[in-house]
């Protein structure tokens, strides 16, 4: 992307994460390093249980690394930071708050006055196409709508980085596609730095500017691929030779890791 600067937004430096357990300590991540530039859309692909979510939790400050550190704009991440807005697979909307109040939540925490809050929230609700649903409670919404509320809630809080942990994995294929396209449009408009986790290679190719493939546990980086597919990433792109070539390349490396993790489970 032409607006992509060379400024490092997030720097993951030699991070190891060990979860102590009674039987044997589990090493989820091993000496993992990754730099994410300002305005990049990095998609991390890996087999289930490879430590993708662990990595994202470390970036968000939900958990701390056993070794190594994570820098956000050159400052180490210590504790939970609202600068890294997280979007969860299970939406994590507050069931007792309306769509409007959910989206306003971050602004309310910043003690922004009610009128301004309402105006801002309305803008983001409109952006994700949920105008008219402001007064609805989350349990009246479909999964896709809930995830859109969650995206609006995160954007309204204006974080420096948006972290998405398999956000569309629980949605049906059609809804997923709509949301993927919506996310790309939001990314193109706002140029936020995004780290997105998925196990779908197609999703990675459709969304990313760069794809990072992780190994089976303990998670390390196996491969990094700059996604040079042209925009807009519509159905035509998905049928192009370059798309197939990239997909094959990623699949070969992911497949080997999936086999490894399956073998480990059966041992």
């Amino acid at each position, binding site marked *: 992307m032409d607006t992509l600067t060379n400024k490092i937004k997030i720097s993951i430096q030699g991070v190891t994460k060990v979860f102590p357990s009674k039987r044997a300590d589990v090493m989820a991540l091993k000496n993992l390093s990754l730099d994410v530039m300002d305005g990049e859309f990095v998609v991390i692909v890996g087999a289930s249980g490879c430590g993708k979510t662990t990595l994202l939790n470390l970036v*968000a400050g*939900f958990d701390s690394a056993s070794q190594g550190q994570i820098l956000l704009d050159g400052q180490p991440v210590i504790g*939970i930071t*609202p600068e*890294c*807005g*997280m979007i*969860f697979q*299970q939406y*994590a909307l*507050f*069931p*007792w*708050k309306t769509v409007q109040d959910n989206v306003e*939540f*971050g602004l*309310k*925490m*910043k003690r922004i006055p009610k009128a301004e809050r309402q105006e801002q929230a309305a803008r983001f609700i409109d952006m994700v196409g949920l105008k008219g649903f402001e007064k609805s*409670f989350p*349990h009246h919404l479909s999964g896709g709508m809930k995830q859109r509320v969650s995206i609006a*809630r*995160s954007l309204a*809080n204006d974080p420096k980085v948006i972290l998405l942990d398999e956000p569309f994995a629980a949605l049906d294929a059609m809804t997923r596609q709509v949301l993927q396209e919506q996310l790309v449009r939001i990314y193109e408009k706002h140029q936020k730095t995004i780290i997105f986790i998925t196990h779908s290679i197609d999703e990675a190719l459709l969304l990313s500017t760069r794809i990072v493939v992780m190994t089976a546990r303990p998670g390390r980086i196996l491969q990094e691929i700059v996604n040079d597919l042209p925009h807009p990433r519509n159905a035509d792109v998905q049928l192009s030779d370059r798309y197939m070539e990239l997909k094959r390349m990623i699949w070969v490396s992911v497949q080997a890791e999936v086999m490894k993790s399956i073998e480990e489970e059966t041992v």
Partner: protein
Amino acid sequence: MNTKNSSNLALISIVSLVFFLAAWEIYCRMGFIEPLFMPAPSKILSRAIKMLNNWSLLGHTLASTRRVMVGFIVSSLVAIPFGIFLGSSRFFMAVFDPFISLLRPLPSMSWIPLSLLWLGITETQKYSIVFMGSFVPSLLYIIEATKNIDPLLIRAARNLGASEVDVMREVILPGALPQIIAGLKVMLGIAWTCVISAELVAAREGLGFMIMNGKEYFQTDTVLLGMVMISVTVMITDLVFRKFEKRLLPWTL
């Protein structure tokens, strides 16, 4: 719900009640049972009319209701914030756990001698019995409700910039509210048993006193009327509570 069906079911309930009362009335009128042991419903009704006319029935009922409400509201107002606090702090839970464990098994009745000694036969003494009977169980309900909050919601709130106090007010309190209210509904019933026991032992008015006094004068109809009034009053407060609940929990509709 099918409204026709539910009104049919209500009709069945009414018929069942009327049938029971009629059987009871006939059984008494046939002289199968001594009125001292079990007066007929009509006797209880005429006692009720008599006591309504000299305002004493209303006075006793209101006295008990006021005691229950004051004790219950004070106990809830203390238990809700304290329970949320203990439920979200493992350190302070450990500090207070021994006292909660010691107080929990004590029935409210066991506090009556001490409360009489300290407070005399006063209104405050009645409130204190209701308080002691309902506080610890309410607290345990609220701690449990607080612990049942989905940790993902707390995580999401913190990620959106909420402080620990914000999380308690914005996430834990509303998230635990349905369970807290369900617990308080049970506690309201317990508060009534507390006040009746306090009034049975020492009081000058109230439904418990009315029952005890009826016993002293061998007025079994007064005793039974007192018991019926307790049931009716608890049923009415439960109905009021349910209205209140719907207003507080609009998202559960």
